[in-house]
């Protein structure tokens, strides 16, 4: 790793298994392996994107990092403290430093609270002084007119609601923000407003983002580095430029070639992936991608590939790539 990057968050061997059908009467619990043995770091001031398709565990990862969900094993170090070991009180105190922006601005705001109540809730919870002052600064920062403070969420459009959600998550001056698909529910013409806003706020408030999305163009645009997830594991992690210029993992390559490009004159060879994403309930042995991988060999079916650094700042988990290096 480059030494000039200061780590804000370090994730080590993070694992989350959900068990299904666990009641008093059924013995055969099924396990969903949502996140498996993840290790990565988030550097101070950067935007780390996590991209992947449904069931890849990207949202679960975000929630585990903020301990909105208890991990099965592993550690999450935030400025040196393992968040997963903190007591309830310690965690509550720490929560000021890491916040979340949610996907659905319609569901993540209590419909019976006014904008003012919504944004001052975190301030009140942490007994922040000069709340009104801070409140006005926040709405100003996210571009909500002051005379809208007494209105309710349903009076706003999706984009404005997401602005309110962002103002809330900024209220306590956090250092780290997990944004879970923050623009996925918005119209195309509004997405760009919110993305620009998030970039501006990052500069203004020295924020570090973990940006989770399924839209590759959005994630490429906003992220400094990107982790590609497939069925609970990171298959490739590198800078956003390199990921698009030189994707190494066959899944990343297929994913990038599948993006519909809004330009009919843009011709390219598409890498076709056959079949569907396997269920995380009983994921394939070895490399989880081998069932759909055009390059799969015997070794891929048996041994789980490790995430290795194939060039500076470029990590890939693939036997084929590994072999080609030798």
């Amino acid at each position: 790793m480059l030494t000039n990057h200061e780590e804000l968050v370090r994730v080590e061997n993070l694992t989350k298994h959900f068990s299904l059908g666990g009641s008093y009467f059924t013995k055969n619990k099924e396990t969903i392996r949502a996140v498996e043995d993840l290790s990565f770091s988030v550097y101070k001031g950067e935007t780390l994107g996590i991209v992947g398709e449904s069931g890849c565990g990207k949202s679960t990862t975000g929630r585990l990092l903020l301990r909105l969900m208890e991990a099965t094993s592993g550690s999450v170090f935030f400025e040196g403290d393992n968040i997963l070991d903190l007591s309830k009180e310690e965690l509550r105190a720490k929560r000021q430093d890491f916040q979340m922006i949610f996907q659905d601005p319609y569901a993540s705001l209590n419909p019976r609270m006014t904008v003012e109540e919504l944004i001052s809730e975190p301030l009140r919870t942490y007994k922040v002084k000069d709340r009104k002052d801070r409140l006005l600064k926040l709405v100003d920062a996210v571009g909500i007119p002051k005379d809208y403070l007494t209105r309710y969420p349903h009076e706003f459009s999706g984009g404005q609601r997401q602005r309110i959600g962002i103002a809330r998550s900024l209220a306590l001056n956090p250092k780290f923000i997990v944004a879970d698909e923050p623009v996925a529910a918005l119209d195309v013409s509004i997405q760009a407003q919110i993305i620009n806003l998030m970039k501006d706020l990052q500069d203004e408030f020295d924020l570090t983002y973990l940006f989770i999305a399924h839209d590759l163009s959005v994630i490429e645009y906003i992220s400094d580095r990107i982790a590609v997830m497939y069925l609970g594991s990171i298959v490739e992690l590198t800078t956003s430029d390199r990921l698009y210029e030189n994707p190494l993992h066959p899944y990343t390559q297929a994913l990038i070639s599948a993006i519909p490009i809004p330009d009919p004159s843009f011709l390219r060879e598409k890498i076709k992936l056959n079949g569907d994403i396997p269920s995380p309930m009983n994921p394939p042995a070895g490399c989880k991608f081998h069932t759909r991988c055009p390059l799969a060999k015997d070794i891929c079916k048996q041994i789980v590939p490790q995430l290795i650094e194939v060039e500076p700042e470029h990590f890939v988990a693939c036997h084929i790539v590994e072999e080609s290096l030798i």
Partner: protein
Amino acid sequence: MPDVKKPLLEVKSLTTSFRTDRGVVRPVDDVSFTIEYGQILGIVGESGSGKSMTSQSILRLVGNRKSEKVAGEVLFEGQNLLELKEKQMQKIRGKEISLIAQDPMTSLNPVYSVGNQIAEVPFIHEKSSKKNSWEKAVAMIKRVGIPSAEVRATQYPHEFSGGMRQRGVIAMALAGNPKLLIADEPTTALDVTIQAQILELIRDLRDETGAGIMLITHDLGVVAELCDQVAVMYAGKIVEKAPVEDLFSEPKHPYTKGLLASLPKLGDKARLTPIPGQPPNLHHLSTGCAFADRCPFVMDVCKVVHPNLQEDGPEHEVACYLYGEEERHANES
């Protein structure tokens, strides 16, 4: 028999209005377009633009209540669907015109096997025997690329993955050999790699069956990949209509331009240029252009009278005072 001279579908001044507590709204306002055999027309727009309501109006899925009204003409092979009795319409739906809806889970009935649901189409519309209908269903399932079709046909929707379900829905839509397919956001609920598979399937099917397709989507990338012609909708009206290459290479309407400019492009990290403001509220539309208050080129006339859709270049129509006849009008006044 298809009448060669007449287009497959010709929609003329389609207007759908709802009476609500807060006045009359027109989710579809004076919309006209044609779809030829074998052509894919993309209808693009954001939420509330009326794109889905247009398809529902064509299929007469709205307009049956007192508070709903559908006006204009929907000529399907020359026959006005809006004048048909509900009974006649039922014969057309699913047989002549099929719908592929966004959410494959809700378009399949969870208590019947997928094969059964597909077999129902030839069973009802073609009066096929049970055995023949079932065979047709299996053939259809095979056709949409689901492996081991015989087994899959006996399974229930919950045993299918998302991508498979959408294939099942497409198989059902194709079972009646429709001449027109209406696909309403067919890949929005799907993952990128699965979306690529489904888009390819739709394109292949068009080539093979020669059916016309009306593709409703918010995704300009999908439009660019799949469509021949594009109509851009905003606040219930078509604001621009063009062959797909022209629309992307030479967008005319400021809304279309704004939409294209607001998309992040791969490998380009320059600051995005969003369309300012919020999407319009159909309850508070002015008589002028609905895009006027978000438009960087707005003129006085835009706020008063809505511009008509006018030809500006071959097959390229735009509803904006910056172009053609309308431009001169605006300059004169």
